């Protein structure tokens, strides 16, 4: 038949490596999405829900004290943590659930790692009246109890997945297996810019609202584009959303931060852009953590949203071609960044986001004064409070105890 599909390819990466059973559904989705994009009413409805329900545009906050303490570039925070449900994930689920409704799908399934995507999907389903099932690794169910409660409160069914590493990768396998069995009436809302074509494109388009707003907001605040934007990378949806609108702007440095877990040498990390090799996982060709025999390795990160052994194909392409710089932060780096941000800016960032902050300090210093750095604050830290507080809270600052 035909050769490699051009659509859904980002350089060598992307494609559609799925059971034949799913191919017609993916083609249907591709067609429905193209049609929705041509329909101004669909775009207007997405925009309306983002405005009225999600609370967009989210703010671009100047981080005065971090800027002063780091002594380099002027630091700005893109506040996805202020979006409804507390993370960028809602941008995508509102879009995809509206698309599912438009396609006449009767039920929604999703996978989740940190639980933020599950909460965002459950929220959109509640808003539009669709039943929702969320697959979540059993380990993540344990460490993200707050989000499990939120999903259940919103009327979703949470299905713990016991196979493999009992984390995000296995939740995604299970969601795909269930989707194969129920593909006729079920819509699978993928939570990151990963998976088979057309998902990486759809998720990126819905998340690109972040970067579009950054463009307008920096223009308004400083009269020009920022000099760099930095975001954490799990599957890569907040990163590609923040960075994509700037790809043609050569003056803007694009930086992604991966989880180095216990350290890049430890074998326990989530750094697929840094240490991954080309492979196929969850329906697309990208960079993945695997052994020499092609078996996918278990990723590790203190943050459930970053311990994914793959990465979206577009980010893999941007990293390989050098357009995006890739940095890493360890669990410990992220923890100390968490407290630094909490105590200098009054914001409890998600552990995922804390990785971006951990790497941003060095970047801000490299860049130097007079430059502008935007950190994508992908989500808030409430969901991580149990994980973080279990390690003990450092003493209060500036108060005698």
């Amino acid at each position, binding site marked *: *038949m*035909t*050769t*490699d*599909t051009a659509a859904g390819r980002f350089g060598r990466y992307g*494609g*559609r*490596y*799925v*059971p*034949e*059973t*799913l*191919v*017609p*559904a993916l083609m249907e989705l591709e067609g429905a999405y193209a049609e929705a994009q041509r329909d101004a009413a669909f775009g207007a409805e997405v925009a309306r829900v983002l405005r009225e329900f999600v609370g967009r545009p989210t703010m671009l906050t100047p981080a005065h004290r971090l800027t002063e303490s780091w002594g380099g570039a002027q630091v700005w925070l893109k506040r996805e943590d202020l979006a409804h449900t507390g993370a960028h994930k809602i941008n995508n689920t509102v879009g995809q659930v509206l698309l599912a409704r438009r396609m006449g799908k009767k039920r929604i399934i999703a996978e989740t790692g940190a639980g933020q995507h599950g909460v965002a999907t459950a929220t959109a389903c509640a808003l539009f009246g669709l039943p929702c099932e969320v697959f979540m690794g059993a380990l993540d169910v344990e460490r993200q109890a707050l989000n499990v409660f939120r999903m259940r409160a919103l009327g979703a069914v949470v299905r713990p997945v016991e*196979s*493999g590493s009992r984390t995000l*990768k*296995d939740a995604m*396998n299970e969601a*795909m*297996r269930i989707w*194969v*069995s129920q*593909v*006729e009436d079920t819509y699978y809302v993928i939570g990151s810019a990963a998976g088979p074509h057309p998902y990486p494109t759809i998720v990126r388009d819905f998340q690109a609202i972040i970067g579009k707003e950054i463009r307008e907001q920096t223009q308004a605040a400083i009269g020009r584009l920022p000099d760099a934007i930095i975001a954490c990378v799990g599957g890569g949806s907040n990163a590609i959303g923040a960075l994509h609108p700037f790809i043609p702007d050569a003056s803007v440095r694009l930086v992604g931060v991966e989880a180095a877990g216990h350290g890049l040498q430890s074998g326990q990390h989530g750094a697929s852009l840094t240490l991954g090799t*080309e*492979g*196929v*996982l*969850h*329906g697309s060709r990208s960079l*993945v953590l*695997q052994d*020499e*025999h*092609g*078996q*996918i390795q278990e990723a590790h990160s203190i943050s459930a949203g970053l311990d994914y052994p793959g990465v979206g194909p577009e980010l893999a392409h941007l990293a390989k071609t050098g357009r995006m710089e890739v940095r890493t932060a360890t669990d410990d780096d992220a923890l100390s960044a968490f407290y630094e941000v909490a105590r200098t800016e009054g914001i409890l960032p998600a552990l995922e986001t804390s990785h971006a902050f951990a790497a941003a300090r060095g970047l801000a210093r490299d860049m130097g004064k007079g430059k502008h750095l935007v950190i994508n604050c992908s989500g808030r830290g409430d969901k991580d409070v149990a994980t973080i507080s279990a390690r003990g809270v450092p003493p209060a600052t500036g108060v005698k105890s």
Partner: protein
Amino acid sequence: MSTELGKAFARAKARGEGALVAYAMAGDPDLARSVDVFVAMVEGGADVLELGVAFSDPIADGPVIQAAAERALKAGATLRRVLDEVVPEVRRRCPETPLVIMTYVNVVMAMGEARYAKLARERGISGTILPDLPPEESAALRAAFDAEGVDLIPLCAPTTPPARAEGIAKDARGFVYCVSVAGVTGMRAELPANLSERLDLVRRAASVPVVAGFGISTGEQAKALVAHADGVVVGSALVKAAHADGPAAAKQLCADIKRGLKR
């Protein structure tokens, strides 16, 4: 297509039977004992052996084969070791039976498609099934396999539109693997009512044999399908039998299904 596969289907047909393509997981419970399972299946009447090579993230497989893959990985069943240790031994003990590898695209890509195709040919593998490689993505792999005469066997699903199914059938190498149910591997009490029509359509378009697979576990089911297919694939039921009761149970189940396949 590989002459061995063609001959095996022709032999079954000449005996007035549908062919049994019998699947087991190479390396489950370990490499040596999985050889005994394959041999037992041939003794039970299997016409073609499908050797599963485990992948850590088997999105097309149900719980039975998923669990078998986990056991095989624990036992060290890599593609390389299956080709070096399992395949030659099965060939030696069942010289007449064509062997097909079933695994996932990442496992083959990790070895390198050309390197895999060459090794597969040298070890006597007739074909390969990659359930996560639809036709749109298969050009490069198929060219590499064609160069070595290893058939890249395509799958056709219940959700595949008729015109696309005909395209897959026309272009097929080895045989067409018609997935009977929209779902993952695993036993089903009932097969879809329209399966026979689908098989007839694919068979009209195909120049190679057409088999039905996924969900088939009994001689009864085989009997119902044999008028519409050149054979059936049985996987989960055999994996389950071998895991619970050893090679003899797999042999027994093959014999039951073969009885159902008599025309």
